[in-house]
């Protein structure tokens, strides 16, 4: 008999069919791990979490009502923040949300939180209000917002985009099941990318869609089509009309009325534009901040072993999670661009070790799978 065990193994394996691999899913999950990789660096258990010194716990209201928040009465959110357990630590404030914070984003007047069950909560000075549900799968959970606006968004459990204006308390999306021009609509949404004031960006099989939230008007975005499994057309972030897109060749900034600008380094599909669109912070193993006017990189936090920029507080201040060395404390830095100066805004822990999945940063996605 000439047949061998090897042939038997081949026969067994050849008879099986497997689903196609979604590269987008792999890359997104991988990029989240890159961002949190520092959390796995180093050894030893987390002793005690040295949180930002607070001036007292702000106990927000319960789950009732709380629509119609006046922006003038909103929380001050333009500060360095992180969440641990059910509490958002923001500057000198600590806000008890009342629900575990799996992922969150901020607007200019509040926070929007997803708990581990996928329930979405709006957190404003008026209290904590249930505003919807999203996919609890960590690989698919994603909130987006405009940090200098009042709108946040997510995909509901049917995969339809939902937007909440924290200023008015209104949520939903005016467009129904029907499609708009060029087949653009809310069906078959692959990825919700970003919100810029009241304009939202997402993708379906036909490419990138731009939608005006207040009217429900949708249209195909006049840019390179989003090609599944490639970088082409993936929208990283949008601010004041500046669209940062991942492309196969790297990152490109589409500027209103101007020629596209290619970054001289960097890549990937995660990043955050400054409020004026002038700077782009990209998710990487070290601080990667670029001038979108010419694509050049801004030297920043070069003396840190690990530094990942993840959000802008305004036009020039960017927040990083960083560690000077593997034995050093884990810090949140606030750096000023283009000056390149940085200061420690918060110390998260004595070392990177084990956050037990209960810490979140305002990037809209879980840090732990």
């Amino acid at each position, binding site marked *: *008999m000439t*047949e*061998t*065990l*090897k042939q*038997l*193994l*081949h*026969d*067994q*394996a*050849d008879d*099986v069919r*497997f*689903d196609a*691999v979604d*590269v987008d*899913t*792999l*890359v997104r*999950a*991988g*990029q989240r*791990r*890159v961002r949190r*990789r520092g959390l796995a660096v180093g050894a030893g258990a987390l002793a005690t979490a040295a949180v930002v010194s607070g001036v007292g716990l702000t106990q927000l209201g319960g789950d009732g009502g709380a629509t119609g928040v006046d922006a003038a009465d909103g929380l001050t959110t333009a500060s360095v923040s992180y969440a641990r357990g059910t509490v958002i630590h923001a500057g000198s404030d600590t806000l008890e949300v009342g629900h575990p914070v799996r992922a969150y984003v901020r607007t200019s007047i509040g926070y929007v939180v997803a708990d581990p069950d996928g329930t979405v909560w709006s957190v404003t000075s008026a209290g904590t209000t249930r505003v919807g549900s999203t996919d609890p799968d960590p690989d698919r959970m994603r909130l987006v917002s405009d940090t200098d606006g009042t709108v946040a968004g997510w995909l509901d459990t049917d995969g339809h985009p939902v937007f909440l204006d924290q200023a008015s308390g209104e949520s939903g999306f005016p467009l129904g099941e029907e499609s708009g021009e060029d087949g653009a609509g809310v069906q078959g949404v692959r990825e919700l990318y970003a919100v810029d004031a009241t304009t939202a960006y997402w993708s379906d099989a036909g490419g990138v869609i731009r939608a005006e939230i207040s009217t429900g008007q949708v249209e195909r975005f006049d840019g390179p089509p989003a090609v599944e*499994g*490639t*970088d082409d057309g993936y929208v990283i972030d949008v601010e004041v009309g500046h669209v940062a897109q*991942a492309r*196969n060749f790297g990152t490109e900034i589409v500027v209103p009325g101007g020629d596209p600008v290619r970054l001289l*380094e*960097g*890549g*990937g*599909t995660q990043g955050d534009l400054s409020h004026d669109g002038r700077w782009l912070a990209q998710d*990487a*193993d*070290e601080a*990667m901040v670029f001038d979108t006017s010419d694509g050049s*990189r801004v*030297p920043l936090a*070069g003396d840190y072993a690990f530094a990942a920029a993840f959000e802008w507080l305004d036009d020039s201040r960017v927040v990083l999670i960083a560690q000077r060395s593997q034995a050093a404390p884990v810090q949140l830095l606030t750096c000023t661009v283009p000056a390149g100066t940085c200061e420690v805004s918060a110390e998260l822990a004595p070392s990177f070790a084990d956050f037990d999945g209960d810490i979140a940063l305002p990037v809209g996605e879980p840090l732990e799978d």
Partner: protein
Amino acid sequence: MPHAPRRDRSEFGDFVAARSPALHRAAYLMVGEVSLAQDLVQEALIKTYVAWPRLRDVGNAEAYTRKAITTTAISWFRRKGWNAERSTDTPPERIQPGHADGVAQHQWLWQCLLELPVRQRAAIVLRYYEDLSEAQTAEAMGCAVGTVKSQVSAGLAKLRDRLGDEPALAELIPTLSSGR
């Protein structure tokens, strides 16, 4: 300032497209379930994407992914309490005398393979399906070459023991040869 490692999404996508079918097949042979194999490959490819900047070429990436599949499979089986005898209460039905058609033989041998402890099964898959040397298998399993020898030897011995009553099937099982 040194350049940050670059994760070339296009290159990674090419690698996934080219190699994921073969990786799925190997993972399936290690775990015996299609859905679990797909989860395993996805997990391994995510790890590969994270490590991409230091893998430098596709050959390294494949070796890295293979190792991730193997060590993750072993870890999952340990963590979830799955071990060799996933069907200890219902051992595979023996082939009846005279019932020696190839399909039944394959199926029975497959069931016997699935009953092996995961490390023994992984070692056999890497050696006889992936055609790796003992040194390469040791690298993929994260263990010493001597451990590979013992795992393969023990696995083949168990298979022969189970198939002892079926000489025709036992002939399918190779004797342990020296490693390359």
